[in-house]
Structure formats: structure tokens, C-alpha cells
């Protein structure tokens, strides 16, 4: 069978499926964390235009925050994201604390950095596993998610929870780390570092992943400066911007990151970048434990916050996470604005898709690390035939795998 025949056959299969009817999976579905909807315009196999539609799980949290007390909002904002929940509560608490006229204990700041870096570790591992899944390398997905459990167990040992950790609070953190846990964390960091080295050797040479990621979803520095993506998506173009080093928060001034960059701006360079960040996070976790000062981990925080405005941001695993807090001096905020990292990366993702084929969509969109929901419902418009159909996430994944298998 020639390449041309197999492609058209695959396309015909999609069309046939469409006429039989597709049960839409998402954009709102209990298994999805951050659903988005992309409408793709195709000329043959080539994507020529992408229209995003977001807001399917917009829950009105900013409005709800105006009717809750300052402390209740810590636990509200961490529920924006199921993966980087701690970074949301961290950006909010430090943003509010910037309005209060007293110092937060140094030990609390170190403990915040500790949990933030553990969250980066589990989020980057989650991403790498998902990239394997969407590229059809499910063994990689299972290995990595098993290793990720080690980090989640540590987070549970520190805070009592795996996902919504509720660890940071206004005035510090809720509890100190239990006795003996520091040694266990050091041991686990050794294990994760070894696994990262193993994955580095595997994913950067394994043919399936190289073919699916090298040169795919490429963005240039010029596009990055124009569309202002954040985090790894920006750093993979060679621009070394990281809130942790440029505008340190928590204890990042004492234990800074070695800001990682890569040059090619494609999905393969995103893999290299995140693997390097994983190694660096392991180093930082150990350094935080070594340098952590003794002392209190919390101070009492007033119920009312002095009037004023605070602009704050942290480096979440997906990039700059921005909070704006306005207080009128009362027990509830006047306005809190949260801008998650993915919101900044959507426009860049639409650029990354242009010029690629439908088969590249799963891997390129995963490259932006959108939480996986975005891919689970995609509309496709054939520009020449003015036809439109919908593809479910699993169907699109299989289409990509089959396309590259035949190639």
C-alpha cells in the first residue's frame, strides 16, 4: 500500500465515523481537568487555521472569592488546578502577605519551596508520561506514572494530601515536616534522579518519540516575544526567563534554580528542557533540606488585610502564574484576579499547530502541557470541501499512531 493511499484511507475512516455519529467526549467530562476546544481548519492534511474556545470549566472562582474571607480563599484558589494546586495557593498567600506589614518566618518560606519543587517534579513527570501515551508509547506512560507516585507519597507525608495539599496558609504553612521525613525525601530524590537519567537515555533516542517530536510544534523566539508564552514553552526557544530566579519568592533567593533553556523550540527540545528541570528540582529539594533554618513555621495572620493592591506571580510547573489582589481593608477581598499559565500558552499552541498534520495534533498540544483535557474534543473543518466533523480524543490519538506507523 502506498503512502498516499493509506493517508486517504485514514481520512475516509474519520469521515465515515462522523456520518455514523460521534458521542462527544468532553469538553466537560469528570475525567478532564482543564478542557478546551480547538477548531482546526484543514487543507488536505495540513492545518491552516486554529480557533480556540475555552471556559468550559470556568467556575466563577474570582467572583466567589469576593464573598469569602481571606483565609477561606486559600483553599478555594488551590482548587483551580488539580496538578499545580499548591502553586495557586502559594501565589495567593504570598500576594496577600505582601499587603500585610510583618515578616513570614524563614522556615515557612523554605517549606514552601520544598513543596513547590516536589509539585514541579510530579507535574513534569506527569507531562512526560502523557507525551508517551499520546505518541503511542504506553509503557513509558506507565513507568513514569509509577515513579510519580513516589513524589505524591512524599507530598502526602508532608501535608496529608496528594492533590489539594492545603499546605500553605496565610502567615506560613500549616505544619512542619514530620521527624525523619527529610532523610526519606533525600533517598527518594536519589531514586528519581536515577530514573530521570534512565528516561533521558530512552526518550531522546527512542525512534517513535524522536519521529513524533523532532521538529514538531516549533516556535521561534520572535513568536514567543509576540505571544508571551510562559514557562518551558518560552524557555525552549532559548529565552531564559524564570520567575524563581528573576523575581524570587518563597526561599528562592537563598536556593535559586539553574535556569534551563533549550534552543530548537520544538517538542523534542521541550522534553530535554523538562528532563533538565527535573534533575535541577531534585538538587533544589536536597539543598532546601540542607539549608532550612530552625524556628517557627507560622505566625498569626490578621482577619482583615490592610487596604492596597498587590501584584504577584510564581513559577508554576507550566510557567508564570499571576495573581492580582485588591483589598479595601475588610475581611474579604475587593478583587482577586488569577491568570493560570495555560491561559498564556493557548495562543502560542495555535501557532505551534499551523502547518502540521492532523496526526501531529495530540503530541503538539501535549507539548504545551495543557492538562490533557484539551484534546478530547476537536472539530475539524475541511476548507476545500466546507465539511466539518468532530473527533474524540482516543480516536485522534489512534489516528496519529496509525499515520506514523504507515509512514
Amino acid at each position, binding site marked *: 500500500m502506498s503512502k498516499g493511499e493509506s493517508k486517504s484511507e485514514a481520512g475516509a475512516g474519520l469521515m465515515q465515523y462522523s456520518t455514523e455519529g460521534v458521542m462527544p467526549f468532553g469538553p466537560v467530562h469528570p475525567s478532564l481537568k482543564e478542557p478546551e476546544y480547538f477548531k482546526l481548519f484543514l487543507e488536505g492534511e495540513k492545518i491552516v487555521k486554529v480557533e*480556540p*474556545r*475555552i*471556559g468550559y470549566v*470556568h467556575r*466563577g472562582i*474570582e*467572583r466567589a472569592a469576593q464573598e469569602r474571607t481571606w483565609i477561606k480563599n486559600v483553599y478555594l484558589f488551590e482548587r483551580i488546578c488539580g496538578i499545580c494546586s499548591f502553586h495557586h495557593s502559594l501565589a495567593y498567600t504570598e500576594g496577600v502577605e*505582601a499587603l500585610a506589614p510583618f515578616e513570614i518566618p524563614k522556615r515557612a518560606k523554605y517549606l514552601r519551596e520544598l513543596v513547590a519543587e516536589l509539585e514541579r517534579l510530579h507535574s513534569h513527570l506527569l507531562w512526560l508520561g502523557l507525551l508517551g501515551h499520546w505518541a503511542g508509547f504506553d509503557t513509558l506512560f506507565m513507568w513514569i506514572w509509577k515513579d510519580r507516585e513516589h513524589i505524591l507519597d512524599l507530598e502526602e507525608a508532608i501535608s496529608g494530601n496528594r492533590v489539594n495539599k492545603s499546605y500553605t496558609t496565610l502567615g506560613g504553612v500549616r505544619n512542619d515536616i514530620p521527624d525523619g521525613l527529610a532523610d526519606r525525601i533525600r533517598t527518594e530524590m536519589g531514586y528519581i534522579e536515577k530514573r530521570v537519567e534512565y528516561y533521558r537515555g530512552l526518550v531522546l533516542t527512542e525512534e517513535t518519540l524522536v519521529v513524533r517530536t523532532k521538529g514538531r510544534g516549533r516556535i521561534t523566539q520572535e513568536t514567543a*516575544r*509576540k*505571544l*508571551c508564552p510562559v514557562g518551558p514553552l518560552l524557555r525552549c526557544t532559548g529565552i531564559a*526567563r524564570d520567575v524563581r530566579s*528573576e*523575581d524570587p519568592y518563597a526561599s528562592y533567593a537563598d536556593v535559586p534554580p539553574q535556569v534551563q533553556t533549550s534552543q530548537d523550540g520544538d517538542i523534542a527540545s521541550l522534553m530535554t528542557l523538562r528532563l533538565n528541570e527535573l534533575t535541577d528540582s531534585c538538587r533544589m529539594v536536597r539543598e532546601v533540606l540542607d539549608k532550612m533554618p530552625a524556628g517557627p513555621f507560622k505566625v498569626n495572620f490578621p482577619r482583615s488585610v490592610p487596604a492596597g*493592591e*498587590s*501584584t504577584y*506571580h510564581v513559577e508554576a510547573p507550566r510557567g*508564570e502564574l*499571576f495573581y*492580582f489582589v*485588591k483589598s479595601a481593608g475588610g475581611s474579604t477581598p*475587593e*478583587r482577586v*484576579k488569577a*491568570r493560570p499559565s495555560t*491561559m*498564556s500558552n*493557548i*495562543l502560542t499552541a495555535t501557532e505551534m499547530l499551523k502547518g502540521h498534520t492532523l496526526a501531529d495534533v495530540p503530541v503538539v498540544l501535549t507539548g504545551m502541557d495543557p492538562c490533557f483535557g484539551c484534546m478530547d474534543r476537536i472539530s475539524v473543518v475541511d476548507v476545500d470541501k466546507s465539511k466539518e466533523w468532530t473527533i474524540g480524543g482516543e480516536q485522534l490519538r489512534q489516528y496519529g499512531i496509525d499515520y506514523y506507523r504507515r509512514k
Partner: protein
Amino acid sequence: MSSDEIATLASQLGATVVVGPKTTVLSVAPGSVADACKRVSGLPGWYHLSTITGIDLGQDIAILYHFWQGKRFLQVRTQVPKASPRLPSISSAVPAGTLYEAEVQDLLGVAFEGNPFLGKKVMLPDAYPPDAPPPLRKEADPHKIKKMMELG
């Protein structure tokens, strides 16, 4: 950015300047917003627009454009009356603002003239009642809006 550079920029834009510990605020007239954002994003190293925030102040809506570099934020700020909330879009001068403007349009009802999402929903559900005020405005009652949506 040095205080001289800020003063020059402010005089060119007819803006008032407030320098805070972390944020420098440039308050400009609504008509000068696109020009102000273009000039700020053209300053060396100041290309990064973090987001756009809208705040309901009662009679007016404040729109804040947050630019970031190093340890500082530069905030371009303006106010539009709630009765006619219209502003020129910055989307052609600062493309990163396109989606942020669309969010403010949905949640506070501000029209950004020239934005490709003008009049299109990006954040709100398609079934959001056309008669209900935008959800982040003070007069919006979430319980009433929920009831309107249930009744269709």
C-alpha cells in the same frame, strides 16, 4: 527602567505616574491605552504582558495591563464608564493581549474595538442569559443568573 525613562514616557502619553515598591502605575486616558501598551512593550526587555485585569469600581470599570520585567511590574491603567464600556483593542500592537481582552469582555462586558473575539463568547457558556449583567459586575447576582439559565 530609570525614573527619567518613566517621566519621558509619561509626558509623551499625558499619563500620571505612581511608583510603588514593586509596581509602577501609568494612568492614561482610555483613548491612549493602545498607544501606551505599544510603547511599553517596545521598551527594551518589557515585551512580556502578564495579563489584563478588569475591576468593577461601581460607576466605572478599571482596566489594568500588567507588564513584567525582572523584579518589577509596569501597569498601564485606565478607567471606562460602566454606561459605555468601550476601549481600543491592543491586539494588533500587543498580540498577547488578544485572549486577555476577550476574558475581560466576557466577565465585565467591556468591548475592545478591533479584537478578533469582539462579540464572541470565549469564557462564558453559550447559554449565558443575554439580559443578565456580566458575572464579575457588582450588580450581577449569581443566584438570579443561575435561575435564569435553568429557565432557559
